[in-house]
C-alpha cells in the first residue's frame, strides 16, 4: 500500500481522534516525540530526535503511589497510580525501535514485571519509518539493526518518491492498518536503502571486554576526560536506571521514580558513606560494560542500539565507538601476547 505524502496529515488527524499520536517534532527549543497537532511541523527528515522516545513508556518522573494518613481512621493509606493510555508512536526510527526490545527485557523479564511500564507498553502501537538519511554519528548497523527496516515495529513505513510504502508487521499493526486504508492506495513506491557511514566491529565486543581486566589501562584512558555528567544516560534510548524518591506535604506524599544516572557518584553512595564505585573510572567502566557486556550476559542483547545520541551530545566527545575500536584492538593484542607466552 502507498500512503501519499499529502495524505499524511489527514491520516494523523484521523488517528489522533481516538488516541494520542506522538510524532517527532520541534518542541520548546529541542526535538522530541510530542503529541501530534496538525498545524505543527513534524521533523520527519530529522535523523534522530534529541530526546529518545523512552519517556513515553518510562517518563523522566513517574508517580508510583500516593500515600498519607486517612482523616477518619488515622490509618495510613497507599493508592497506586498506574497511568496508561492508548498511544501511537509515529515516525520512530529503527534504532529507537530496538531500544524498546531492551527496555522490555529489563522491565518485563527476570522475575518481576514492572506494572507501571507494562500498563503503558501494552497500549502502545508503533509506526516506524525507515531512515532516508543517516547522520555521521549513526552506527545502528554495527549494533545489528537495519536502518531501513525495524522488525519490532507494528507498522513499517518506507519513504520513496511521493509517498510511503505501508506494511503491517504484527497483529496490532494489522488492526491499525484498517484505519490507514481510506488514506492509502494500492501499489508500491520505489525506495532506496541507506547505510550507516560509521561502522565499528561490535560482533565480538562482549568477549573482548571480558578479556580486558578491570584494571586495564583502557579504562583509565577512556575515563580521564569524562566529566561525570548525566548527558549520555539521559539522551540514551536504552538507559533505564531509575531512582525512587518522594515529595511530601503535611501528612501526605507521593512516591515517584525518576531517571537516574550511573555517572553520578551519589548513585551508588550508601548511607554509611561507603561507595562501591567511588572513582570516575569505575563509573565510566560500569556504564560501558553495562551497555556492551553485562546486559548481554543477563538478557542476551546489547544495551546499545547505535543511535549516536551520546556521541552527538557528550560535552567532551567521549565516543562509544572509539571505545569499541580500542577494546577490540587491545583484546587482540592481549590474546596474541597470551598465545606467545
Amino acid at each position, binding site marked *: 500500500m502507498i500512503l501519499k505524502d499529502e495524505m499524511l496529515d489527514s491520516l494523523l488527524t484521523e488517528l489522533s481522534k481516538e488516541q494520542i499520536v506522538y510524532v517527532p517534532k520541534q518542541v*520548546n*527549543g*529541542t526535538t522530541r516525540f510530542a503529541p501530534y497537532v496538525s498545524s505543527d511541523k513534524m521533523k520527519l527528515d530529522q535523523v534522530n530526535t*534529541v*530526546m529518545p522516545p523512552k519517556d513515553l513508556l518510562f517518563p*523522566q*518522573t513517574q508517580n508510583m503511589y500516593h500515600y498519607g494518613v486517612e482523616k477518619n481512621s488515622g490509618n495510613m493509606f497507599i493508592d497506586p497510580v498506574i497511568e496508561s493510555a492508548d498511544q501511537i508512536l509515529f515516525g520512530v526510527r529503527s534504532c529507537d525501535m530496538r531500544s524498546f526490545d531492551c527496555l522490555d527485557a529489563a522491565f518485563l523479564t527476570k522475575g518481576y514485571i514492572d506494572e507501571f511500564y507494562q500498563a503503558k507498553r501494552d497500549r502502545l502501537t508503533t509506526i516506524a519509518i525507515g531512515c532516508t538519511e543517516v547522520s*555521521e*554519528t549513526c552506527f545502528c548497523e554495527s549494533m545489528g539493526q537495519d536502518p531501513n527496516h525495524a522488525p519490532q515495529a507494528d507498522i513499517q513505513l518506507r519513504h520513496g518518491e511521493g509517498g510511503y510504502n505501508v506494511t503491517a508487521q504484527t497483529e496490532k499493526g494489522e488492526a491499525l492498518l484498517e484505519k490507514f486504508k481510506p488514506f492509502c492506495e494500492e501499489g508500491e513506491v520505489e525506495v532506496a536503502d541507506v547505510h550507516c557511514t*560509521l561502522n565499528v566491529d561490535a560482533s565480538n565486543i562482549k568477549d573482548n571486554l571480558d578479556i580486558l581486566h578491570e584494571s586495564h589501562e583502557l579504562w583509565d584512558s577512556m575515563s*580521564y*576526560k569524562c*566529566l*561525570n*555528567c*548525566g*548527558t549520555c*544516560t*539521559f*539522551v540514551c534510548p536504552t538507559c533505564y536506571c531509575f*531512582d525512587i*524518591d518522594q*515529595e511530601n506535604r503535611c501528612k501526605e506524599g507521593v512516591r*515517584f521514580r*525518576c*531517571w*537516574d*544516572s550511573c555517572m*553520578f*557518584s*551519589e548513585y551508588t553512595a550508601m548511607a554509611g558513606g561507603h561507595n562501591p564505585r567511588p572513582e*570516575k573510572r569505575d563509573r565510566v567502566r560500569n556504564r560501558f560494560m553495562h551497555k556492551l557486556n553485562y546486559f548481554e550476559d543477563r538478557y542476551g542483547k546489547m544495551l546499545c542500539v547505535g543511535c549516536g545520541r551520546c556521541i552527538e*551530545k557528550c*560535552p*567532551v*566527545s*567521549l*565516543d562509544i*565507538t*572509539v571505545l569499541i575500536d580500542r577494546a577490540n584492538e587491545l583484546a587482540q593484542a592481549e590474546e596474541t601476547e597470551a598465545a606467545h607466552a
Partner: protein
Amino acid sequence: MSDITTTLRERARALMEDGTIAAFIGWEAGRFERQTTPLICLDAADTDRLIFDEYCVNTTAKYVRDLKQRGRIGVAVRGCDSRAINRMIEDNQFKREDVYLLGIPCPQMNDRKTGTVLNKCQDCAHRNPVTYDELLGEAMEETAPQDRYARAHLVSGLDRIARQNIFNMAFERCIRCYACRDVCPCCTCRTCFVDQRNVGWLGKQDNLSENRFYGMIRAFHISDRCIECGECERACPMDLPLMAINKKLVEDMNTLFGEYESGMTTDNEDALRSFSKTDLEEFE
C-alpha cells in the same frame, strides 16, 4: 599541520621528558571531521596526538583537579583556560606551582557543524592567556567586545512576561544532567548542594520548579566567580541560555559594586565575599 600544533607537541614532549610535568592536558582530533576532544597525556608518546586548531572547543582546566596528585601538570591554555586556572587557584583547588602553563593566543573557536564562531567565543575580551609560563606564538591584539553583556541585554530588554516565558521554556526542557555544573571551573564544591540528598535541598523530580531552583541557585553560587567562559552553555545538551543568566549576574555586580573580571588574577576580591560601607543603600 599548523605551527602551533608542532610547537605544542615539541614543548609538551620536552617538558614531559625532562620531568618538569607529570601529565599534559590539551586536545586531540576526534573521530569526525573538525571534531576535537580533550587529551590527557600521561607519557611523552601521547603528546604526538596533540593538536590545536579552530575547533578546540573544550575548556580543559578542570582536569587539573583530577590529576594534581600525579605531580605538576602541564596545560595548554588560551584566554579562557588561563582564567579558569586562576579561578581554581583562587578557590584553593591547587597552587600556581602545581601547573605549568603553555599559553596559546586564541584564534576564536568555531562550531564544527556551521563553521562560524562559537557563541561562547563571540564576546570574548581575553583571547591571550592572562597567565602562562611560556607563550607559544605571538600575542594578538585584543579586541574588546562591543557589548560584554550582549547575551543578557537580549533578554533584559524584554518585558517581565516575555522574560518569564523564555526562562520557563528553558528550565522546562532542562533534563538535569548537571553537565553545566560538571564542566564549570567555578563549580568545585566537594559535594554539590544537589547531591546532598540527606539535606534535601532539591527534589529529584524533573519539573519546572525543581529545574528552575537548580538552574538559578547554581548560577547564583558561581555568580561572583563566573569567568564568562561559556562552557556551561556549550556543554548543555538541551541548549539552555545559561550565559544569559550568568552575564546578567556579572553585569549587576559590575554596575553595583565596581568593575571587575573574575579569573584575571589570583587575588581578586569577589563581589559577594567582600563589602564596602559605602555600598548603595536601596533597602532603607
